[in-house]
C-alpha cells in the first residue's frame, strides 16, 4: 500500500495543475518578452551543476513565489538523493580533516542531509512502472537541447585544403575538442553531386552546423508545504468487502457495498512531507 501510494504521490506532484499557469491564463498578462522567458529557463537548466549556489538561489526564488501567492513558506524539498549529495560535496563539507571532531563525526555519519535551508529533504525513489523494464525515478526525465555553429570559408583569401581543419568543437563522448575538416563539412552538407560541385566552385561558403538532440537525463524537484489545507492529501476508501463460506461460522451473505468510491475528507491521509 505504501509503495503504490508513494508512486501515486510522486506522479500527482509532477502532473498537478500549476498555480503559475492558472495566473498566466487568468490574467493573460506577461511582463516578460519571449527572449526573457527563454533565458529564464535556459539559465535555470542544470543550475545545481552550473553554480555551487544554484540550489540555494532556486530555493530562495521559489520561496519568494510562495510569498507572492500568499501561501505559507515551503517546508519540504522532494528531490533525488543525488541532488542532496551534490550539496554535501562543497569544499567546507568535504574537507573534514580540518574540522576536528565535528568533521570526523560528519564523515562517520555518512554525511546525511536531513534538511537544507529550513526544508526537510525527502528523497525520491524508483518505481517499477513498465513491464520488463528496470524501476525508474519519475523525477528524472530525458531532455534534448539544440545548438548551432557557423563557419565561413572565404576562398578569395586562401583556398583551404580538403583535409584542413576549419572548426573545432566539443565531443562529449570523448570529453575533448575535435576538429572537423573542410572536406567533411562539404560531404556532409551536399545533397547531390551537382550541389557538391557548386559548393566547391563557389568563392565563399558558409556552413551552418546543427546539433539538434544533445540529450541528458535531468533531475527535477518539488518544493512544497505539506498538509491537507496547504497542499493536498491521499484520499482513500474501501470499495469492496467480500465474505465467503466459512467452515467454522457457516455462510455469511455478502454485504451490499456501493461500487463507486466516495472520497471522504475524514479519511484523508494528509501528505506527510
Amino acid at each position, binding site marked *: 500500500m505504501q509503495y503504490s501510494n508513494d508512486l501515486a504521490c510522486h506522479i500527482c506532484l509532477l502532473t498537478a495543475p500549476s498555480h503559475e499557469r492558472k495566473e498566466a491564463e487568468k490574467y493573460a498578462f506577461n511582463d516578460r518578452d519571449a527572449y526573457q522567458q527563454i533565458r529564464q529557463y535556459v539559465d535555470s537548466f542544470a543550475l545545481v551543476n552550473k553554480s555551487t549556489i544554484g540550489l540555494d538561489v532556486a530555493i530562495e526564488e521559489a520561496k519568494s513565489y510562495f510569498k507572492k501567492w500568499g501561501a505559507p513558506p515551503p517546508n519540504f524539498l522532494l528531490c533525488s538523493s543525488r541532488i542532496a549529495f551534490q550539496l554535501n560535496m562543497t569544499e567546507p563539507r568535504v574537507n573534514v580533516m580540518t574540522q576536528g571532531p565535528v568533521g570526523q563525526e560528519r564523515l562517520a555519519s555518512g554525511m546525511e542531509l536531513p534538511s537544507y535551508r529550513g526544508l526537510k529533504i525527502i528523497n525520491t525513489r524508483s518505481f517499477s512502472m513498465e513491464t520488463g523494464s528496470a524501476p525508474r525515478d519519475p523525477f528524472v526525465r530525458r531532455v534534448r537541447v539544440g545548438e548551432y555553429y557557423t563557419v565561413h570559408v572565404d576562398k578569395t583569401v586562401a*583556398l583551404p585544403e580538403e583535409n584542413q581543419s576549419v572548426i573545432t568543437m566539443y565531443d562529449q563522448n570523448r570529453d575533448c575538442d575535435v576538429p572537423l575538416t573542410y572536406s567533411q563539412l562539404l560531404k556532409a552538407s551536399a545533397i547531390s553531386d551537382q550541389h557538391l560541385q557548386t559548393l566547391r566552385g563557389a568563392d565563399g561558403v558558409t556552413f551552418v*552546423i546543427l546539433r539538434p538532440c544533445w540529450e541528458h537525463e535531468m533531475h527535477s*524537484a518539488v518544493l512544497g508545504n505539506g498538509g491537507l489545507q496547504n497542499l*493536498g492529501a491521499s484520499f482513500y476508501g474501501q470499495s469492496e468487502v467480500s465474505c465467503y463460506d466459512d467452515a467454522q461460522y457457516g455462510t455469511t451473505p455478502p454485504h451490499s457495498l456501493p461500487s463507486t468510491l466516495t472520497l471522504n475528507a475524514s479519511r484523508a491521509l494528509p501528505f506527510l512531507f
Partner: protein
Amino acid sequence: MSFKYHCKPVITNDKGAIRLFDIAFCGYTGGGNTKLQPFKTGENWDGDDFEHWKSKVESLDEAFGMQTASLICMAFVDPNNSISSSMIDPVCIQPPSNLQGNNANLYADPENIYSTYHSEMSHWETKVDSADDIPVDDNNQFSNKNMRATYAGLCPNWTLLHAFRQTAGHAANQCDSHCNAFFFEGSYRTSGGGVMSKTIRGNGHLGHSMQGCAAVRSGKGLQMPSVAPIQLTHLI
C-alpha cells in the same frame, strides 16, 4: 475475506507546491559527439542512412544513443559572409507558420505556460535573401533561398515535435524525451585557410562546453565557472 480499497493523492491547493524541472544533470544519453550525418547517402557516399537517423530524432520514447550521429551540416554559397552575422540566439530552423493550423506555440518553459516564439528567431531564413540571393547556376537551383527550403524539408520537423510536446511532468511520467526547436550558439573555435578565426563560448542550456565537463554532465560534481559571478556571491 478480502478487502479492496481505492487510494488517490489529490492536490487541494496548487499554491502549496512549486516544481523545479531540470535543475541537475543525472546522465548523458547521446547527441554530443562530433559525428556528421550526411544528407546524401548511398552509392559512393559514406555514412548511415539519413532516413534512419531522422527516425532516431523523431523517436521520443527512447534515448537518442551515444553512437548516433549528432551533427548535420548545411552549406550555403555566401561570398559576403552575411549568414553568420544574421544568425541570432536562439534560432528556429523551421518557423511554426509552416505547421498546419499556423501560429503554433513554441514553449521554452517545461510546463508549457509561456509561448516564446518570436518571428525574428526565424529571421535568418529571409534576411539573407535580399543581400545575397545569388543565382549560382542557370536554374537557380542552389540559391540560398532554395537551399534553406530544401534543408528545412529534409530535416526532421523539430518545430512540430516541440509544438506538441507534453508538459514536463507528463513527459517524465511517460518516459518521453523533451525536445526543443530552439538552437543556441554553442562553444567552438574556427580557424584555417580562408577561415576567419573566432572563439565562441556557448550560452545555451548547457553553457560553455570544455574538456572535463562530461563528468559534470553525468551528474558527478559541479562545474566551476571560469569567471566568478562576484555580484551574485555578494548577494548571498
